[in-house]
């Protein structure tokens, strides 16, 4: 059936060709003989076609479909940064939820599948796996009556047990309500809310979400304990090279700056965010150079976006290089604990 080939093709599209063989071995659905038959020196597309043919020959339609879906999930787990994840908060815990179910993939799968069947067609399929302490789920919901496999119908969900947030990949807006209801019931909560936090690196996203939810009244946690989210590496100490002939004029200032940065950002590496966006609607503040202060320019709407491999580290580096003056404004410093990467800055209402 062409169905297997489509799923396999989309699964393999994000993988590196070199890893394909090890992934197939890890999958374990093809026998050793069959694996030896495959020629891995050919292109990915050729290998996928052969695998699809082998799957069809097995003639066990339902089981094969399940195993192929599992393979897709395995590939996603191996390459999570190829997808964009959005974070959602679970709100209002229901009484009597059994937390231990969350750590067992088989039981969780049954529960999730039951919920999905309630809200969606019974043709939906669910796969669950456990990796690095997190539950990875793949949900495929058929759209309408079209039996063709569409990549956009696949939703991936990541959840750390006992954590109040989940990461979901892109999904269609039309199914949002049902999906949310379904997921909140499975996890034992009443509703879900958007956290306005998204990115490619799911571990950092979970760290940021945890920082926000775990904020106590005592203030921001600067030194965080060892959590499964991120390997909390201490930032490399800045080496001040001391050559005998070189003199640095502003050493005192540099030292003071690095101390204040360490105070503000902590000594651990910042979570990885690819973009940070601010929508600003405040009074125009560039009046310093203008001779005739404009009365008409009241509200100045603009949108600022910082992009890069790791924006939070970058902000710290901006201050270190001198491109930004200290003290940095609170909305830049506190991104770590605010748990969002899309902000709206507005004038405080005077009323």
């Amino acid at each position, binding site marked *: 059936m062409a169905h297997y080939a489509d799923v396999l093709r989309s699964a393999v599209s994000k993988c590196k060709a070199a890893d394909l063989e090890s992934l197939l071995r890890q999958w374990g659905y093809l026998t050793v003989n069959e694996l030896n038959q495959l020629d891995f020196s050919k292109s990915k597309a050729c290998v996928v076609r052969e695998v699809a043919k082998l799957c069809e020959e097995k003639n066990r339609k339902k089981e094969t479909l399940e195993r192929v879906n599992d393979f897709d999930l395995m590939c996603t787990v191996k390459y999570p940064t190829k997808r964009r994840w959005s974070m959602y908060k679970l709100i209002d815990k229901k009484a009597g939820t059994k937390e231990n179910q969350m750590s067992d993939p088989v039981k969780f799968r049954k529960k999730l599948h039951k919920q999905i069947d309630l809200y969606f067609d019974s043709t939906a399929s669910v796969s669950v796996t456990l990796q690095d302490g997190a539950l990875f789920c793949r949900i495929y919901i058929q759209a309408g009556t079209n039996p063709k496999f569409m990549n956009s119908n696949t939703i991936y969900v990541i959840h750390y047990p006992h954590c109040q947030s989940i990461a979901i990949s892109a999904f269609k807006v039309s199914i949002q309500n049902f999906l949310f209801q379904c997921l909140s019931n499975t996890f034992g909560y009443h509703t879900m809310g958007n956290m306005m936090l998204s990115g490619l690196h799911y571990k950092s996203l979970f760290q940021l979400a945890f920082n926000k939810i775990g904020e106590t009244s005592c203030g921001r946690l600067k030194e965080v304990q060892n959590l499964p989210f991120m390997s909390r590496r201490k930032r490399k100490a800045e080496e001040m090279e001391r050559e005998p002939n070189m003199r640095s004029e502003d050493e005192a200032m540099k030292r003071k700056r690095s101390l204040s940065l360490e105070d503000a950002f902590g000594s651990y590496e910042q979570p990885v965010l690819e973009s940070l966006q*601010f929508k*600003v609607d*405040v009074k*125009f*503040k*560039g*009046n*310093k*150079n*203008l001779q*005739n202060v*404009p009365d*008409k*320019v009241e*509200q*100045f*709407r*603009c*949108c*600022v*976006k*910082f*992009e*890069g*491999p*790791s*924006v*939070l*580290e*970058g*902000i*710290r*580096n*901006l201050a*270190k*290089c001198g*491109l*930004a*003056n*200290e*003290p*940095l*404004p609170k909305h*830049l410093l506190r991104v770590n604990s605010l748990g969002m990467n899309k902000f709206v*800055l507005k004038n405080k209402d005077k009323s």
Partner: protein
Amino acid sequence: MTTRQKCPTPKNFCSTPLTANPLKSRLSQKSTAKRFTPYGKTPQSRRIAKAFPSTQGRRKVVRTKSKGLSNSNTESEELKGFTNKTWKVFKLSPLYKFSSSPRDLKRYGQLLSSSVAMANQKGIIEENNASGKAFFCVQQGVKKSQNDPDAIQILIKGRKHAGTTDTVLLTATLCGVEMEENLLSHDMENFTYYPVLLVKATVVLADVLITWLQRHFDCKVSPLVFPPVDLVWMIAMWSGALADTGHKNKPVELIYLVPSECEGIKKVTYTIQAEDCLKVWNSIHDSKAEMFTEEEMTTFISCLEEHFYCLFRIKLDAMQLSCVGTSLCYIGRDSLLKMT
């Protein structure tokens, strides 16, 4: 007929970084002076042109555009081919013995086709466009004033390896619009000067075209890089350009590149609503005055950066402006141009 134009001595000229850019957007302006650049405004259309101070005998030529709002619809039809496409901009030194007569253009087409076929055979071009044919024709509607040479459009049609019909693989336009002066001097009778070449094609095909042009007309083609100063002029001039006409304005976008010592952030995008931008500009520049001065321009950009500094305490003026977008066009520093 070969256009006979004058230009200063070749030595000086070839080293001229020309920023002549006949963007057929609806603005054009003229300017002549040295330190501050007066910009004249005509009542119907805002015309923008640039001339920069001549330093060491170098002269940057005016960039002109004309607004075709009130004029014929046919003109805007022809110019539509320029809009909504991303062009790569190149500057050229004068072409030797280039003529725009139909017979010559046909000959050029054949020569270029054979050049493309040869490149194809060498395996440089990946797509199997065995039927790559080049066409040269005079493009109507681009030439504005007497001094302008006839705009030439170059098309290379071919077949991509998967397709069955001929598609246009390369579109290029050699043009100059509302050029102020005859830059070619008396001695250079065989030269034709086109300030700008706009190309839309794959890199490989564009390279083939450029090599062919360089070889046949003994000229030098190089990408036209817009320095940040020019980009700032562009925002200052066009940020509020369409504000009065009731079109929904695209916001004014400035993209700054963060220097590489600062790891982690690659670029900062600063997008401003067009109306607010125009308000600030109007408070700096008296709308009745005919000239845009350099002081006004620097004040404008420093106001915007000051506002940013008050919000984030990040110094934008220490970063490099790399791309600029207004509702009229989007210009990137590495020679990309998109007109709307």
